[in-house]
């Protein structure tokens, strides 16, 4: 891990000098994770690729603004998430429109989830969620944002964020059962 961080920091340092090879190595290192984040938000291959390209370009150009080279990954992730949210806003997606009828029965037993759920299936199920719930679920459950932060970012109330998260989780539960 230490070795990875050291290498990573060296790459970031080289990127600061505009080293194209270092930029490619950093891209190769982070592209898959960032692409999957973008896919979970946008559920569209081309849009996700556009976001990935835009985010890496932004990151490399604004690298002088990064204070700690060790935080490149989290900084890049923030750029990707912001770009995804902006893309959703551009498509006029608002985050208050989850349908109640899709909410699953929370008392339903989902059995041994750990043993029978394939991560690829779960990933696919998340992508198929309605955009509002999907965004909040991704931010809260996967990217570890607080409901307070989500409310601020999406310009909704904290309780809306909580409610939509629960609903999205319910829909996801139902999808996985099917």
């Amino acid at each position, binding site marked *: 891990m230490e070795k990875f961080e050291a290498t990573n920091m060296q790459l970031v340092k080289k990127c600061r000098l*505009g080293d194209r090879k270092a930029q*490619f190595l950093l891209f190769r290192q982070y592209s898959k994770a960032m692409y999957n984040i973008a896919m979970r938000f946008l559920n569209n291959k081309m849009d996700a690729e556009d976001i990935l*390209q835009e985010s890496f*370009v932004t990151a490399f150009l604004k690298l002088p603004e990064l204070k700690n080279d060790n935080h490149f990954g989290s900084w890049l992730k923030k750029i990707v998430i912001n770009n995804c949210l902006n893309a959703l806003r551009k498509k006029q997606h608002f985050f208050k429109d989850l349908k109640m009828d899709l909410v699953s029965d929370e008392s339903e037993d989902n059995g041994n989830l750990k043993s029978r759920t394939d*991560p690829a299936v779960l*990933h696919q199920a998340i992508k198929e969620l309605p955009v509002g719930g999907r965004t909040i679920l991704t931010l809260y459950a*996967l990217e570890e944002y607080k409901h307070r932060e989500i409310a601020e970012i999406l310009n909704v109330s904290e309780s809306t964020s909580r409610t939509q998260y629960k609903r999205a989780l319910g829909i996801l539960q139902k999808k996985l059962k099917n």
Partner: protein
Amino acid sequence: MISELEKYLKENRENLDTDKPDQLAIWEGIRAELDENKKLSGNNHRRFLFNWNVAAAFILILGLAYIISNLSRNLPAENTITLSSLDKSLGQREKEYQSYIQVTKQELGSNEFSNDPVIYEIQTEIMRLDTLYNQSINDLNEIGYNERIIQTIFSIYEQKIFLLKLMILETKKKKSHENKYLL
């Protein structure tokens, strides 16, 4: 139940990344954009330098204009240099010539014989000397103190006095001639 799903999501966060991006295609796009940006920033840098040069030239021109304007303001107006401003003794000598000319002109009085060819010739010569005097003063303003110009000016005064005296003599001659015939 839901909390179990939530827990599962958090625990399997890394495993969820199952989509594979077209890395090479995306990298090509990134590289092209970075290259474009580099070119643009190079152009911006050149444009910045060009703008700075223009601004510097403008400031230089303004500065020069200010200096020239100040210099010309500090220069005396045209024909303001007099011999007395150059040297008191020169001024004194000029005054003496001017007084003498004044007295001579008074002695001459009104010119009754301006139509006489000789008197007319002398008057034309005096006018030519006046023009020459103005030119010499202009030269003095442009060049400043110059011995030859100063000598020219004094020479003009002397010639003018000589011509005025000549005109007095000629006038006297004409008058005596008229009287002779009248008597």
